[in-house]
């Protein structure tokens, strides 16, 4: 995570996400998948091909791509279908866009009710016998049962969670890095899924993104760094309030 300053002098914290060898693996049509839209299977980071069975490696062989560590599905409209085997780059996103980021949260193991659900516990003194971090009562007398989903101690973390509506401040096309506002679930160097935001406030925010994606062998030559309009770039002189 890094600080970033705007032209008005405000500081924002930013997370760096690296796009490492992403390829499109397979196209699944609407009828095949049985959903409302067609799907595209996309694979992430390269990994060793020796530790998986032949049947699992079939998808990668079809696409002509080394084995990927993580494979995810993206729901895609029919006009945005990409041929399997095309690489995806960070330039697929543009600064000023809004993005949802999904990842597995840091696993905390078996945790008590105070850490997991934020219960207040009991006082440390004034006669409490062996009760300082316990949940207390779990149901009422009338109910005569414990409801399903009652908050109790258990395994915390290591589940998929999404942060919605994160602004993209800057993109580095040379190293394929996306600078995303705020924090992102997951530990450092974990695998993360980045999608265009589904929030209704940002429905019309994408001003001419590269559609269906950014092709590296195309005619467009992008500069090494793409900045948002409000960002303070370090090549400029210091900020003044005139």
């Amino acid at each position, binding site marked *: 995570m890094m*600080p970033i300053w705007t032209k008005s002098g405000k500081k924002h914290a930013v997370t760096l996400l690296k796009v490492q060898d992403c390829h499109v693996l397979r196209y699944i049509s609407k009828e095949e998948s049985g959903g409302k839209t067609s799907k595209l299977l996309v694979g992430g980071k390269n990994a060793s091909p020796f530790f998986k069975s032949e049947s699992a490696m079939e998808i990668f062989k079809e696409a002509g791509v080394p084995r990927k560590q993580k494979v995810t599905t993206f729901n895609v409209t029919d006009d945005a279908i990409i041929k399997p085997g095309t690489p995806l780059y960070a330039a697929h996103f543009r600064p000023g866009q809004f993005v949802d980021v999904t990842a597995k949260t840091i696993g905390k193991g078996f945790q008590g009710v105070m850490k997991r659900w934020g219960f207040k516990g009991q006082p440390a003194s004034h006669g409490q016998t062996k009760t300082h971090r316990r949940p207390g009562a779990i149901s009422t007398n009338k109910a005569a049962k414990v409801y399903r989903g009652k908050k109790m101690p258990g395994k915390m973390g290591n589940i998929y969670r999404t942060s919605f509506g994160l602004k993209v401040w800057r993109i580095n096309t040379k190293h394929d890095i996306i600078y995303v506002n705020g924090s992102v679930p997951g530990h450092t160097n974990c695998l993360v899924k980045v999608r265009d935001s589904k929030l209704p406030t940002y429905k019309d925010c994408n001003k001419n993104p590269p559609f269906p994606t950014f092709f590296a062998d195309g005619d467009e030559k992008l500069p090494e760094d793409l900045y948002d309009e409000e960002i*303070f770039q370090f090549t400029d002189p210091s900020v003044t309030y005139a």
Partner: protein
Amino acid sequence: RISSDGNPAKFQPPPKPVIIDKQKQREERRFLSPEFIPPRGRTDPLKFFIERKDMIQRRKVFNIPEFYVGHVLAVTTADPYANEKVNRFVGICIQRGGKGLGATFVLRNVIEDQGVEICYELYNPRIQAIEVLKLEKRLDDNLMYLRDALPEYSTFDVNMKPVSRLDHEEVPVNKLQVRMKPKPWSKRWERPKYNIKGIKFELPEKKMKEAQKWSQPWLEFDMLREYDTSKIEDKIWKEVSEGLKK
């Protein structure tokens, strides 16, 4: 002249004069700002490389002078609420923290009997100028104990003139022993955990001995805590100096 053999002595040329090149001696002393050194962790080195590029870029546009803890600095920042839109603060640097672009330094001064500490970010674009008024290193890396010292040690004139520097050789170390206000202090500075050498402890011997109970003599031999930064520093120094020359 006849040598011991009896033959005439060979012509001995006079000894060559030894030229001490002062410029080379100056260049030998390298200073790498502590925020360039990456902390120990599992972060990708690519992240530090990208951050260093940004830091070098900022340093090309705006000069950040070499300074240590104990120097007296004057910082002018852009302030939308001030009359002249510019705010100038003079103070002694008591601590330098943070790594990368978020590096900070805290300046302390006593203005009209009120102690004021301001934490500035080195790479904040609102900073217009940083001037080093007085160069002197102290015996410690962290001068937080000045909060519990007598106020005369933290007062610096706001309109102080920059002290001229004669040698470009070494930064002078001020071995000043500071006198403290009566206890209680904000932290127990006599304990060996803080390892402070710049205070003149006027506590009874019994208290000093009791403080030594909290010493952890095994810490300096702990191998897992070792972080040898010499090679990393050399690489980063080369990278930074090349980046700044361009």
